[in-house]
């Protein structure tokens, strides 16, 4: 230090003009040079860590393709190769034989002559045209010059002469050329076969060539590491509303996403797990971040995934959370082909009625999920009602009704209010109408007729397990005997719509006796617990007023129809932008980060698990407590993540067009309104009743093919009042009492699934061709169609698995086109069907008969024509 000071003071003594600055200048220049070098190095290496990944990727693909190449080489069929090679030699020999050479020489000779003849013809034609012009001109000028006319004729003769020469030469040329072409074709055929044999090898070789590294002076030259980016113009909007491009460079490191050889390789090179999905969402066009999020333009893992950049507002969605992104384009749909987690969440939200209190896009016009509460007087007892309001899960742990955690006083007020509403109803069941049933027979009916498609009764929870949700779609009936008035129950079972015009429960068309049996059985299902009798006052006007206020405040009308509250608005906040809520906008109440970590995910998870978690002495939560399982909560949370206002514009959006609207309206009806999916599988979802059946053959049919399969008028009549198709089944299609509008929605839904529109047509306008009918009848007998199908009475002594529908119904029920498709390949339409495929290959001649030229397609048509003529033999 002191030396440095001495240096400075010595320097200070030197006059300024003579002080040397050379060394300072040299040092600074050296530092500047160093800085420049560093910047080059920084730019090329430090700031391009992706290069390492790409080199690794190329090495790894090269290794994979090398292995493939070796496999392919080993798998090469040397026997057939030898054969093909000798065939090739033979074919080439023919092509190069002296005989062929002579033909070729002849051909080229003809070509020479043709050229000459053509030229002469052209000359003659041009001379003729010129003469014709002058002749016509002279005619028009009024002094016809005949010499031109004769020139025209002269040249016309010449043209005809050359023309016939040309024709002769051409036909001779072509006949010789055909021989040569045949030789060439033979060579080409063999060459193609050899190429097919070598296809795998050549493919592997090509790929290996591209991926293999080559070096020059120890430096890696090829393949060229480069940024691979996808640019989508006008995909995003800035926060100020101006459109901007999105740039994705994910594929710079995740280079193997489409390579089938890279399946099961570790990240970042592995193939995408859903190649089928990528066919409709091509990452080469739309990049990766629209679904996976992350910072597309970044080129290091930390910044791109968002782990290291806390300012990036769209960090990577990890694991199944990626399904949140489906919502940005498909928010209006509740089912997506590849969206398992998404579908599950959409179903949970739709079935649990979140939209009753919250505005949620895609659920804006859903039916209320709860029953109407205007007739409780005739149905329940006040005690039960009080206990139910107090805690619904106490009576039925699997009810969809959440627990509002009302105090005794509040519950009493609400019960009093509902009781007062019920008293205004003028509906009363007939007293004593339900007596004298047989409980054992009733039990049998309940077990077989299809009640269990919606209701869980007693220990039989198979349907609930198959549904895979923590709640039931209809009330569990295990304690129903302690809940409802038996006369009401009788009338309800007989015809729910007579009791409540909006009832969802269908009419199972039970006889009076059957209905009494069912009542007798269900009234034995009692709540065995003892309850302290509570003296409750249901007539106090103050209590009723208090109850009415509570019902309004807590938004009961979001799920239930209550007289006088039909027009209540949603009581809680909109969830349409919940995915973008910042952590500082979320109120964690008194929860310390050690109890509930202060993140969006944890906040939402704990809110859904126990809605009252964040209640404090000042902030009162009104949201009731649901009983979702953890996996359900995670699914719902994933969906909520996807509710944001920043969605891509057209043309990047899935258009919610007329077809999709029809489909979605149908899903709403068949899933959320009437629970058709409880019994039927429609779009790879549903059919839960199957779990309660001993034999799958007893299950209600798969409805996806319906739009292609059945005639629209038949479907309309069937939904109005079902007719029996499979009399051997105990399960009935019940009468839902759908109105015409609902039937139209259902028809349009089934048709839209097959890209069809609803149109009225007469399927009987064209009568079957008698010639075809005759052939069809013969085939029908030969193929023994009647060993499963029948045309009149159900054959006896056959098990359900061996029976197939009455073909006499076909002419009014089935679409003619569909019958053909069905006979061609039944398994494609209904996987697992017992119907055999009679014509495995339509190109081959029919194996059954020589009629109609043995053409398989024609014979199938004949079968169809016959089936359409089968009369109803009673």
């Amino acid at each position, binding site marked *: 230090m002191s030396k440095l000071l001495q240096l400075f003071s010595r320097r200070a003594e030197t006059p300024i003009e003579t002080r040397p*600055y050379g060394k300072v200048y040299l040092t*600074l*220049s050296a530092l*500047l040079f160093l*800085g420049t070098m560093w910047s080059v190095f*920084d730019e090329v290496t430090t700031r391009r860590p992706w290069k390492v990944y790409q080199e690794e990727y190329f090495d790894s693909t090269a290794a994979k393709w090398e292995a493939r190449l070796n496999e392919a080489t080993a798998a090469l069929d040397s026997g057939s190769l030898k054969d093909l090679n000798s065939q090739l030699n033979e074919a080439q020999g023919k092509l190069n034989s002296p005989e062929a050479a002579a033909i070729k020489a002849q051909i080229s000779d003809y070509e020479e002559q043709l050229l000459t003849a053509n030229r002469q013809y052209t000359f003659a034609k041009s001379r003729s045209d010129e003469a014709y012009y002058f002749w016509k001109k002279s005619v028009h000028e009024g002094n016809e010059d005949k010499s031109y006319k004769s020139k025209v004729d002269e040249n016309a003769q010449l043209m005809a002469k050359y023309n016939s020469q040309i024709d002769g030469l051409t036909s001779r040329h072509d006949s010789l050329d055909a021989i040569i072409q045949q030789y060439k074709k033979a060579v080409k055929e063999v060459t193609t076969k050899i190429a097919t044999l070598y296809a795998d090898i050549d493919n592997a070789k090509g790929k290996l060539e591209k991926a293999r590294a080559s070096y020059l002076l120890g430096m890696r030259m090829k393949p060229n590491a480069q940024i691979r980016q996808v640019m989508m113009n006008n995909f995003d909007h*800035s926060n100020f509303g101006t459109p901007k491009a999105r740039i994705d460079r994910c594929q710079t490191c995740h280079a193997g996403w489409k390579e089938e050889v890279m399946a099961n390789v570790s990240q970042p090179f592995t193939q995408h797990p859903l190649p089928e999905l990528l066919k409709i969402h091509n990452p080469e066009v739309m990049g990766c971040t629209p679904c996976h999020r992350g910072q597309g333009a970044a080129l290091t893992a930390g910044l791109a995934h968002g782990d290291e950049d806390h300012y990036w507002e769209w960090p990577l969605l990890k694991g199944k959370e990626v399904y949140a992104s489906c919502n940005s384009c498909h928010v209006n749909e509740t089912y997506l082909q590849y969206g398992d987690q998404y579908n599950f969440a959409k179903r949970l939200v739709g079935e649990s009625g979140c939209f009753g209190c919250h505005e949620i896009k895609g659920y804006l016009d859903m039916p209320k999920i709860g029953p109407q509460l205007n007739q409780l007087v005739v149905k329940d007892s006040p005690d039960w009602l009080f206990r139910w309001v107090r805690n619904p899960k106490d009576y039925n742990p699997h009810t969809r009704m959440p627990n509002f955690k009302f105090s005794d006083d509040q519950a009493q007020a609400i019960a009093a209010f509902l009781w007062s509403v019920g008293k205004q109803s003028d509906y009363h069941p007939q007293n004593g109408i339900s007596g004298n049933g047989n409980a054992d027979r009733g039990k049998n009916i309940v077990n077989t007729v299809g009640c269990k498609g919606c209701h869980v009764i007693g220990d039989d929870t198979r349907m609930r397990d198959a549904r895979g949700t923590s709640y039931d779609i209809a009330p569990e009936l295990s304690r129903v005997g302690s809940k409802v008035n038996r006369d009401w129950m009788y009338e309800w079972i007989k015809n729910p719509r007579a009791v409540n015009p909006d009832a969802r429960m269908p009419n199972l068309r039970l006889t009076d006796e059957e209905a009494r049996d069912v009542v007798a059985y269900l009234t034995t299902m009692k709540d065995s617990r003892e309850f302290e009798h509570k003296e409750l006052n249901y007539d106090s006007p103050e209590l009723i007023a208090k109850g009415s206020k509570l019902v309004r405040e807590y938004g009961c009308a979001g799920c239930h129809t209550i007289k006088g509250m039909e027009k209540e608005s949603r009581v809680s906040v909109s969830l349409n932008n919940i995915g973008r809520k910042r952590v*500082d906008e979320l109120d964690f109440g008194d929860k310390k980060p050690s109890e509930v970590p202060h993140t969006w995910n944890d906040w939402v998870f704990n809110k859904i698990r126990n809605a009252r978690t964040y209640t404090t002495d000042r902030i009162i939560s009104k949201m009731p407590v649901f009983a979702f399982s953890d996996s359900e909560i995670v699914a719902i949370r994933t969906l909520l993540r996807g509710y944001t206002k920043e969605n891509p514009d057209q043309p990047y959006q899935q258009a919610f067009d007329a077809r999709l609207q029809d489909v979605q309206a149908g899903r709403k009806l068949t899933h959320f309104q009437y629970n058709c999916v409880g019994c039927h599988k429609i779009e790879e979802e549903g059919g839960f009743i199957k779990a309660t059946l001993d034999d799958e053959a007893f299950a209600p049919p798969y409805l996806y093919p319906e739009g292609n399969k059945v005639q629209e008028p038949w479907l309309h009549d069937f939904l109005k009042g079902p007719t029996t198709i499979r009399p051997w089944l105990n399960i009935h299609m019940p009468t839902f009492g759908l109105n015409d509008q609902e039937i139209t929605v259902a028809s349009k839904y089934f048709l839209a699934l097959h890209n069809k529109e609803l149109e009225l047509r007469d399927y009987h306008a064209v009568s079957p061709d008698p010639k075809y009918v005759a052939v069809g009848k013969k085939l029908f007998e030969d193929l023994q169609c009647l060993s499963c199908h029948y045309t009149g009475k159900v054959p006896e002594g056959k098990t359900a698995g061996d029976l197939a529908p009455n073909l006499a119904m076909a002419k009014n029920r089935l679409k003619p086109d569909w019958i053909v498709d069905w006979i061609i390949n039944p398994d494609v339409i209904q996987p697992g069907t017992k119907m055999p495929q009679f014509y495995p290959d339509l190109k081959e001649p029919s194996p059954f008969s020589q009629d109609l030229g043995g053409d398989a397609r024609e014979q199938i048509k004949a079968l169809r024509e016959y089936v359409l003529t089968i009369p109803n033999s009673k």
Partner: protein
Amino acid sequence: MHNIWLLISKPDNIPIVGLLVFVILYTWWSFAKALKNDRQGYLDESKMGDKIQVWPNLVRVEFLAALFVMIILIFWSFLIDAPLEEPANPTLTPNPSKAPWYFLGLQEMLVYFDPWIAGVVLPTIIIVGLMAIPYIDVNEKGNGYYTFRERKYAIIIYCFGFLILWVSLIVLGTFWRGPGWYFFFPWQEWDTHRVVALTNVDLSELFGINTRHADNSLNPLAIIFGVSIIGIYYALIGVYWAWKKNSEMVKKLGFTKYCITAFLFLTMMALPIKMILRIGFNIKYILVTPWFNI
């Protein structure tokens, strides 16, 4: 303590940490030189000999200095990336929303005055006042050498204005202001949800005159009160003149220069006075008019 490290290590704040060190260092150095000169009775600078040419003697040193600064900037840019944050969003201002570091002093003034005064009037007066210095400070002493004794008032007023009111407000804005522009100690965690009992009243209200009537219209009495207070404050210019017009300093300045200097000085002092009134007595404004507030 975690927070203090976050504040110091934030790339935006590096210049301010540097500023703290360098301002203190250079101030100390110049004062050391000035006081040495004053004490020893002769000037160190007088030993330095004759004057020399700017070209090349000064220019070459400046060139080397420029080179040096460039090297520092280049290496700085290698080590620390530009501190980008989330995209700008008109519907969502960051909390705290801080101006660039060199404007933090102005931003701090917004706490005490309304935007018209703090954002337009005072900055204009600062600039005009700085431009006026050569015309009102006619003391030739201290030219080319360090001294304190010969320019006592000039140096004290300058140091107060620059070091206390400008630099320290920047430091205050950087290290002591957190979310909601509330006062946080540098070692305190910044809590967005912090609640501060802050009820400010106008000065007139302390004396029982409400600024506004119940229908929200201004009370003329309060305006008269406010104008009187401001009037009395600036009347100090005249009072001091009457009292000290024969002192050497006032005489040297002459009437016009005295008035300008006194006006600028009082305006400068208005800031600390208002700070004390606001922080100590919860005074919001002294004068409320439909157009501006003081």
